[in-house]
């Protein structure tokens, strides 16, 4: 695999960021049929694996835009309005996960998958912490509300989705990469 700059934002990155955002938005809405128990204003979205995976595969900027824009478009289509601090939190999930991009040679190697799981955990924790803490500034919520009402439900739901689906996507992408020789 070619060595690429982590912060490069060329034509491929523009296109993959857009595709990641559109995928995140469409899959978030499309998997609404899943009626899983989760807390209050936090929805259970398997599609959260998309910005995490796009970050790992194409870099932190792509991961950020996929999460930020994808969440924005998804809320927009679902009729939830515009919540910039949660969009930024979703973007940060992809950005932090993307910090491991281009540092490995095989997507399906056990070490890469383990590293990806670690970055998924870091990404989700950072992203959801920033989004949740912003509720203190915007809504005046106290730290207990932020932790139990926002952070824990969103982080747990996203961790479950990310930890299970990101490795599946990475293994599938490895097959695509080796077949196409990219």
């Amino acid at each position, binding site marked *: 695999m070619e060595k690429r700059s982590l912060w490069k934002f060329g034509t491929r990155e523009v296109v993959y960021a857009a595709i990641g955002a559109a995928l995140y938005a*469409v*899959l978030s809405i499309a998997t609404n049929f899943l009626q899983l128990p989760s807390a209050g204003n936090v929805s259970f979205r398997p599609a959260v694996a998309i910005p995490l995976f796009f970050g790992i595969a194409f870099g932190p900027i792509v991961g950020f835009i996929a999460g930020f824009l994808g969440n924005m478009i998804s809320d927009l289509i679902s*009729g939830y*309005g515009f919540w910039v601090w949660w969009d930024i939190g979703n973007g940060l999930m992809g950005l932090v996960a993307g910090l491991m991009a281009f540092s490995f040679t095989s997507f399906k190697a056990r070490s890469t998958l383990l590293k990806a799981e670690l970055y998924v955990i870091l990404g989700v924790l950072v992203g959801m912490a920033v989004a949740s803490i912003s509720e203190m500034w915007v809504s005046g919520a106290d*730290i207990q509300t932020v932790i139990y009402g926002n952070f824990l439900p969103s982080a747990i739901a996203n961790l*479950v989705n990310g930890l299970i689906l990101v490795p599946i996507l990475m293994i599938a992408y490895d097959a695509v990469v080796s077949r196409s020789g990219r």
Partner: protein
Amino acid sequence: MESFDPRARWIFSLLFLFTATLFWDARFLAVLFVLAFLWYFSANVPWSETRRAWSFVGFLLLIMIVVNTILTGGGAGGVVPEGGHQVWPNGIPIPFTDWVFHFGLTYERLWFALCQILRILGISAVFVIIPFSMDPRLYGVTFRGLGFPDKFAYSMELAFRYVPTIARDFGVTIDAQRARGYEVESSGGIFKQLLRTAPLIVPVTMNSILTGEDVANAMDLRCFGQGPRTWLTKLQYHWRDYVLIAFSILMWVTALVIVYWFDVGNFWVPQWLLNLAGG
């Protein structure tokens, strides 16, 4: 509202957010609340369209108020001072028993709940209305006009264009998987249901990535990113946009002066409420 330039509308919305988050004084929040809803109603969007968004806001508010005001007693984010005037100073006697339930709810926290309602509803009114009143095709050019890089703005525009394509691909994939015996119905535990989404998510994602490679090559061949981008839609400020921007800046600067120069606008409880509380 639609007659304003989208850039002016974004500037107003963001400066309104910064202004509202400076205050915990219900008098200032009430003024901002009225301003927010004047702005909201100027869009003439019917209730049926925004009902879902407001249900979401209502649920958020309920959680905030119930957890913040009713359940937790530690003061809200350091805004409400410790102590205060209790609503039930002698506790709540439980009928048919000798027990007394001591509940630390104070008038100050109830007033804070009102401030939260004014602030959250005001901010929500300004932001909820954006997607219902702004053409999604203008997002890219608007963000470029607000100073975002060309490539970020183009990503945004491209993402909106991809949504119908990916939605169609998802429909085709779900039909193809159904033909192979895939069941959409949700049953079983969390992990089982989550794993059941993989046969939908993986093919759609991989197919989109392969398509993206061709799109990127086509864009490279057309020298994408080699020079400043031009946009099909041109945005132009008119006098009313300048008025809106000037008003937004004035509102924010005035709020900064009020809060940081005059030290007014922090949490405040009216005297009549304290009198009612016996203090």
